[in-house]
C-alpha cells in the first residue's frame, strides 16, 4: 500500500445502528489511491461499496478510522467544512442519476455553481461548456424526463464536473443502462479523466467493464476489503 496515496483510507469502519440491531457496513477498510488513478470497486450487494463511497465523498462520517485526501484528514472536518470539501473537491454520480426533474439539463448542470457563488452568466457558460463536453450540446433545454437514461447520466457527469473537482465518485453509474450505453459512459469517464486530471472511483457489479477501463480493482466482501489489484501501471 502506498502511504503517500492521494486518497488514503485507513482502517475505516462504519456501523449503522437502527435500534438494538447493529449493522457493520464497513470494517477496517484500508485502501490507498494514487492521484489520477481510475479505481474500480466491486463486490456483492450489501458488501459496503456505497458506504465506502459516501464516507470518501464526505456525505457520511465514519464510526472509526480516517480518510486523508490530498493531505487533509477529511474525517476530522466539521459539517460545514465537509460541505465545502464536497463542493470543491468531489463530484458524484449515482445509479439513479439524481437529476432534479423540474430543471432543464442546463439548470441541473449549473446547480452546484449556485453554492460556489459563481455569477449567473459564468454559471450558464460553464454548464453549457460541460454539456458540450459530454456530447449533449443542443439538449440543454430538455428536462430529464425528455432524455434517455444514457443522456441523463451524461448530464449527471457534467453536473459532477462543473465545479472542477479532483475526484469523481461514481456509484453504479451504469446500473440503469444497457451494456452499450454503459460502455459509452465509462469510456467517457475514462476520456475525461485524462482531459481533466481526475481521480476516479467507480463502483460496479460488472467486473468485466471495470477490468477494461480501470487501473485498479478493489474487492469488497461483507464490509471488508478482500483485495486491491493493480490492473495497469502508472501512466
Amino acid at each position, binding site marked *: 500500500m502506498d502511504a503517500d496515496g492521494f486518497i488514503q483510507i485507513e482502517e475505516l469502519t462504519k456501523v449503522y445502528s437502527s435500534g438494538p440491531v447493529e449493522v457493520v457496513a464497513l470494517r477496517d477498510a484500508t485502501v490507498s489511491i494514487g492521484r489520477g488513478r481510475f479505481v474500480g470497486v466491486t463486490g456483492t450487494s450489501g458488501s459496503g461499496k*456505497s458506504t465506502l463511497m*459516501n464516507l470518501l*465523498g464526505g*456525505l*457520511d462520517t465514519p464510526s472509526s478510522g480516517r480518510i486523508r485526501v490530498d493531505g487533509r484528514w477529511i474525517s476530522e472536518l466539521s*459539517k*460545514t467544512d465537509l*460541505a*465545502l470539501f*464536497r*463542493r*470543491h473537491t*468531489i463530484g*458524484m454520480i*449515482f*445509479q*439513479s442519476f*439524481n*437529476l*432534479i426533474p*423540474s430543471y432543464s439539463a442546463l439548470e441541473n448542470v449549473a*446547480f*452546484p455553481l*449556485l*453554492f*460556489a*457563488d459563481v455569477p*449567473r452568466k459564468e454559471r450558464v457558460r460553464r454548464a453549457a461548456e460541460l454539456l458540450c463536453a459530454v456530447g449533449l450540446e443542443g439538449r440543454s433545454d430538455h428536462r430529464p424526463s425528455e432524455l434517455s437514461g444514457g443522456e441523463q447520466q451524461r448530464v449527471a457527469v457534467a*453536473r459532477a464536473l462543473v*465545479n472542477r473537482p479532483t475526484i469523481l465518485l461514481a456509484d*453504479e453509474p451504469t*446500473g440503469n443502462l444497457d451494456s452499450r450505453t454503459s460502455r459509452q459512459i465509462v469510456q467517457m469517464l475514462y476520456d475525461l479523466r485524462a482531459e481533466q486530471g481526475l481521480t476516479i472511483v467507480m463502483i460496479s457489479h460488472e467486473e468485466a467493464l471495470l477490468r477494461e477501463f480501470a487501473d485498479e480493482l478493489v474487492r469488497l466482501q461483507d464490509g471488508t476489503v478482500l483485495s486491491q489489484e493493480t490492473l495497469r501501471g502508472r501512466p
Partner: protein
Amino acid sequence: MRASDYIEHAWTNLWKKKLRTALTTGGVVIGIGSLICMFAFGQGIQRNIKDRFTELELFNYINVSPRSGGGARSARLRRHAQSQPAGDPNEPIAVLDDDLLEELMRIEGIEAAYPEMRFPAQIRLGTREQFTLVQVVTSKACGSAMVQLRAGRAYASDDANEVMVSDSLLRRLDIRTAEGAVGREIEIRTVVLDFSLQSLARMAFGRGDQRLPVSNRVYSFTIAGVLERMGFGGPLPIRSDVFVPPGAAAGMRKLVLTGVSDLFQSPEETAGYSAVTVKVASTRQVMSVKASLEERGLRTFALMDQLDEMQKGFIIMDMFLLAIGMIGIAVASLGIVNTMVMSILERYREIGVMKAVGATDGDVQKIFLFESGMIGLLGGVFGLALAWAVSFVINQVVNGFAAREGVPFIQYFSFPWWLCLGGIGFSILVSLLAGIYPTRRAARVDPVVALRHD
C-alpha cells in the same frame, strides 16, 4: 450563495408550483389583508377624529357652565325665589351673563366667548316639516373655522333675519342640493319652552298652571347658507341643524318666554346663559385658561382633557383589532408550514443533491427560508392590495348609505406608509417564523438516505 441567487432560486421554485404557491399565498393574502384592513380602519377612525378636531380647532375650545348643579337660570331662579342655593352658600356662583362674557374676553389667551343657547322648534321648508334644535350662534362664529360652509354664506349680521341650516336637515327635508336651498324662505315654529324653568316656577309660585308658557308663533327666515353637519358629538360649540343669529333670536326668545318670563323681568335674568363656549387662541394655553375660569367659580370642560383618554381608547381599539386580525395570521401560518413541509418531502432527493454538490446545512435552510419569505412578501403585497380594495368598497357602500342621512363623505380607512410597509414586513416575518420548523427539517436531511436509489 448570493442573496440575488436565493431570491431567484426561490422565485423559480415557487413559480414551478403555481397552484400551490397561489393557494398558500392566498391564505396569507387574506390573513394579512384582514389585519391591514383592521388597522387601516382603526387608523382611519383615529385620523378622522384627530384631524377633524384639529382642523376645527376643537382642542381650542372650553365649555364653561356655572358650578351649581342646575345651570345659571335655575340657580338664579332659586335665589329669586329666596330658596337656599345648592351647595356651600359661600361658594361664589358665577352668572353667565354678558358682563361675565366681557370679563372672560379679557383673560389672557381667550380669543372669543360664545353663549350657548338652543331651543327646540318645528322647521318648515316648502311642504316638509322637521322637528329639530335651533341654536343661537353669532355671525362671527358662523364665519369662523368652526363652520364648514357647503353653499351660500354666513348670515350678514347678528341682527339679520337669516339662518344657516345643515345639509343633513336639508336632506331630511327632501332638498337635494345645498345650492338650491340658499335664498329660500324657512319657517321656524317655536314649540316649547324651558320645562325646568316652568316646573320650578310652578313649584315656587304655585300659579304656573294658569299661564302655560306654550307658544306657536311662527317666524320666517331666509336661508343664508348651508353648512356641513359635523359627524362627532362631544363638547362641540356647534351641534344643531339650524343656526339663528342672536339678534333675531332675542326677539324670538322674548316671545317664547312669554308667560313665565314676565315673572322674572329683571334684565339680568334674561342675560343668563346655560353655557358659554370659550375659544382659546392656542392649545398650549388651554390649561392655564381653564385654571383661571375655575378660579371664577365656573365649571369647565375641555376636549384637551380627554386627549389622554382618547389615546388610551385608541390603543385598546388597536389591540382589539390586532387580536381579531391575528386569527387570520395564525391560519395563514399553518398554511405556510403545511406547504413548506409538503415541499420539503417532495424535494427530499433534491435536498440530497444539494448537499452532495456542496450545500451546507445553512445553505439548504436558507433556500427554503427564502421561499417561505417570498410567500410572505407576495402575501403582504397582495394582502395590502386586497385590504385597499376591500376598504374602498366598504367606504363606498357605507358612505352611500350615510349620504342619504346627510352625513358627509368620510374616509373610514387610512393607510399610512408605516402601515403599508409594516404590513408587508410583518407578513414576511410571520412567513419566516412559520418556515423555521420545516426548513430546519430540510437542513437536517441525511443526504445518504435522500440519495439512496429507490
